[in-house]
């Protein structure tokens, strides 16, 4: 019985410490890049937020679509109005789990597996990236490809700014421990 008490006390402490072990974004950077015959298109979003629960390794990311900034105003308008229909679908969300990562210090590769909801379409995806944990700071980065047709984003045949069928997404998130109120 005594043996169990040790175990229980230990588990209790584990519980206490694990409670509130969440990391929230301090800064975020998402860039998409599309190479097209006419001109390359690039847009940056620095308004995304994300949170990771260190116990379950669950991760969620919310990306406000209208916050993608394009070098050209009209591209941004077309992106929102015609391609992503951001009035109808103002946010993209990723809900998933960090697999093959145990939360250790230092740099290590990691995979996020889960559902990306974009343009009203939910799809299972797997993103390979890297996580760098240094004490309190957690940096995550990944580069991956999204196929527009997977998310029912239609590209008309005759448009001025031609967009490629696939876009390359670069994501960087800097996390800090999240203090629960």
């Amino acid at each position, binding site marked *: 019985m005594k043996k*169990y008490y040790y*175990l*229980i006390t230990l*588990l*209790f402490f*584990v*519980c206490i410490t*694990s*409670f509130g072990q*969440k990391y*929230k974004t301090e800064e975020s950077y998402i860039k998409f890049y599309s190479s097209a015959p006419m001109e390359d298109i690039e847009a940056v979003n*620095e*308004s*995304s*937020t*994300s*949170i990771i*629960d260190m*116990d*379950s390794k*669950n*991760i*969620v990311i*919310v990306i*406000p679509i*209208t*916050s993608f900034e394009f*070098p*050209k*105003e*009209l591209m*941004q*308008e*077309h992106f*929102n*109005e*015609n391609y992503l*229909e*951001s*009035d*109808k679908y*103002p946010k993209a*969300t990723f*809900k*998933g*789990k960090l697999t093959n990562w145990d939360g250790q210090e230092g740099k290590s590769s990691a995979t996020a597996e*889960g559902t990306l909801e974009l343009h009203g379409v939910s799809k299972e995806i797997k993103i390979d990236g890297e996580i760098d944990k240094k004490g309190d700071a957690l940096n995550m980065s990944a580069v991956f490809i999204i196929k527009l047709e997977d998310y029912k984003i239609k590209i*008309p045949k*005759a*448009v*001025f*700014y031609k967009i490629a069928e696939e876009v390359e997404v670069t994501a960087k998130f800097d996390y800090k421990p999240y203090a629960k109120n």
Partner: protein
Amino acid sequence: MRRISILLLLFGFNSFAQDELLELLESEGTADKGYAIATFKSTRVINGHSIETRSNGSLEFIISHRFGTLNSGYKEFWGLDFANMRMGLEYGLTDNLNIGIGRSSFDKVVDGFIKYRLLRQSNNSPVTMTAFASIARKTAEIEGLSGLDRNAYTAQLLIAKKFNSNFSLQITPTVIQRNLVLTEDDENLLLAIGLGARYKLSNRVAIVTEYYPQLSGKAEQFKDSFAVGVDIETGGHVFQLHFTNAVQMNERGFIGETTEDFWDGDIHYGFNITRVFDLRPNKK
């Protein structure tokens, strides 16, 4: 053993499920301002200005035509033989502040304007509000017209709301000071209120309509300007094709000096075509 399993359960309970995390994240709010985009597709509703401004460094070239009336018949090729045009250049000094110049063939009017977006529809504001001021000068040789008599000044407050992704509405209180009026029945100061609406049929096509009733006493010969048309967007270009009883394309002209009656068939076919050039494409 049972206690351990209970504790393990609790342990499990402490870690957050994905949906809970999402709720937590959304309860915090985002940095997203929720700005309304493309309330109108162009800087014009049809004849009059829309709340839209061009962004910093964008130069817009706008060319507008109004042909003759459709009821002029076969001999006039249903109005296409007659054309009145305006060419203009508009520039975004900042995202909110635009300036522009234009010249119309009708009465050889030269106009210049300044436009400033005061308020932008977002999570914090229900409407977009833009102030507009212009000066229009008739430079044609017209008997009895000289000096400052040639000028008219317009001030407008453009207030628009995008109700949903398809429907936008604009209300435009307007004051026009005309230094010399065409008839004795007219007052120098003209009050009018513009009403404009846009309804999107598809991602690239929208119906627009515009009506500018005059509020102050006007001479019998003048009519309120009315217009209806379609906006077709091709990426980079916006084509606005429309039917209107107004033949002029500056505020003094179409609001105050429209003489034809839309409902009598005095309808001009017309279009505005805009092309935007980004003079500072690499701005950050």
